[in-house]
């Protein structure tokens, strides 16, 4: 069907991009793999030596690694249901007829949080959640809550910002799903029942499933990536209360200078990511 094109032409079109991306996206990974097989400490560079899989052994038996991974999953487990619940609520409101102008404005304001520089979200957190001069304590009726210095509160604060920043994303994804429901089917269902939950459950939900799966996978990947906002807000602290997986790897590699160990952790994280990406592509790009 498509015209025959010589292999040379194809290469000329696609080659530069592939070479470019391989140079910055694959070569470093191979180097990380090499590093992960060595004792490689930035403060003891004279002593770089091959130690096989020892770093991997250390990582896999290291409670700190598993705790950081567990903490990351806890964050996901708390934030994602909130994002889906609130996001679905917002999507359902926006999907209702009427108040067009207000809804357009609401949709535009939803765009703002998810475009905001993550680092700025963290800085905003510092200012707004400050125990003494913070507006959050003021709005809570002059409460005297130590948000940043207390392990549990710091975690709650991270959940708050993650929910603030990404609920709009979930809402807009689900809204896109709701608009896919054929109008006549939805109307027919509404004539049958005035119960919105039944309409959601039996008519709209099938159209929401692809969006929900996308949200589930992408939010998982993004939580594994989460660094900027937490780094600027708590640096993983207090103690290790908010040290999620990417922060832990950064600390091991750049603050404890153990590049070998950090690389092993990074490779393990990469493997988790590849599995996630596989699932994503299997679900969404079957036709490619």
């Amino acid at each position: 069907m498509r015209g025959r094109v010589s292999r040379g032409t194809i290469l000329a079109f696609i080659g530069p991009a592939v070479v470019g991306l391989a140079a910055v996206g694959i070569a470093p990974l191979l180097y990380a793999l090499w590093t992960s097989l060595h004792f490689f400490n930035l403060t003891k560079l004279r002593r770089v030596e091959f130690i096989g899989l020892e770093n991997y052994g250390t990582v896999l038996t290291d409670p700190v690694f598993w705790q950081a991974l567990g903490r990351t999953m806890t964050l996901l487990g708390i934030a994602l249901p909130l994002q889906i619940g609130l996001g679905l609520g917002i999507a359902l409101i926006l999907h209702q007829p009427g108040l067009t102008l207000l809804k357009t404005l609401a949709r535009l304001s939803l765009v703002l949080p998810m475009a905001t520089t993550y680092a700025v979200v963290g800085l905003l957190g510092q200012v707004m959640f400050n125990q003494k001069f913070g507006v959050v304590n003021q709005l809570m009726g002059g409460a005297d809550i130590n948000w940043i210095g207390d392990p549990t509160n710091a975690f709650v604060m991270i959940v708050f910002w993650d929910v603030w920043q990404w609920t709009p994303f979930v809402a807009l994804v689900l809204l896109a799903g709701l608009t896919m429901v054929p109008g006549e089917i939805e109307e027919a269902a509404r004539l049958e029942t005035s119960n919105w939950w039944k309409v959601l459950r039996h008519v709209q939900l099938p159209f929401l499933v692809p969006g929900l799966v996308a949200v589930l996978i992408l939010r998982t990947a993004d939580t594994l990536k989460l660094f900027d906002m937490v780094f600027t807000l708590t640096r993983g602290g207090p103690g290790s209360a908010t040290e999620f997986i990417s922060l832990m790897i950064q600390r091991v590699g750049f603050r404890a200078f153990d590049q070998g160990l950090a690389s092993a952790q990074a490779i393990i994280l990469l493997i988790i990511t590849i599995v996630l990406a596989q699932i994503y592509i299997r679900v969404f790009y079957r036709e490619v």
Partner: protein
Amino acid sequence: MAAPRTRPLYGQAILLIAIMLLCVFPFYWMVTTSLKTHVVALEAPPVWFFEPTLANYREALFEDGVFRSLLNSLIIAICTTALALVLGVPAAFALARFEFRGKKDLWFWFITNRMISPIVLALPFFLIARNLDLLDKHITLILIYLTFNLPIVIWIVTDQFRGVPYDLDEAARLEGASQWTIMARICLPLAMPGVAVSAIFAFIFSWNELMFGLVLTRTNAKTAPAMAVSFMEGYNLPYGKIMATSTLIVIPVLIFALLASKQLVRGLTMGAVK
């Protein structure tokens, strides 16, 4: 009939306004704090009404080097976006128009790049850049930002090229046009909206990025987010200045995001959600 229909509308309106307030309030607080003097910013409890001053902006921009870091961010974001377009547009054309083996693997690779945690690349890139004397240089960030910009450009533009009718190619080929001419003269002008949106995405992602900037730059090529974070040292934090810098960082991305708001969800999901 009219009465029961208007009541839920009130409820709806209140909820919508609440949603907007929640979305916008942090920005309001950021901007107002940036207009407070150091003394006012440290008042407890915080004050809502005060005499605004631009002193924080003046100090941050011209005394603390924020101007330069914004310029660095701008240079880096524009160059990496341009490079991603130059490399990505022909690749997108090939993906949309040619059949070849390994197409699926390429897709998979792009999606994986979207999901990889930047720390995974930051570790080896730091060591490589150190060995090649590339630390604290703009080019380093320009190149490494391709890891997320190139996939997003290729994805969006491929989709756009697919929407250009194939008949046009056919007609041009009968006239003897080469594939390059077909792309440049026929398909590209029609795919411009997609190219523009992908450029906005690449710009936003690069502008917002912190970790690589933190790890790979010191002073010369320091990006604006890294600069903002460096104010966070010490005890008496200059909140007004930090918020002024934050405002300067955030305003351009918010404008771009609003411009591309219709495509934002598509872009963020790599097209899985239309």
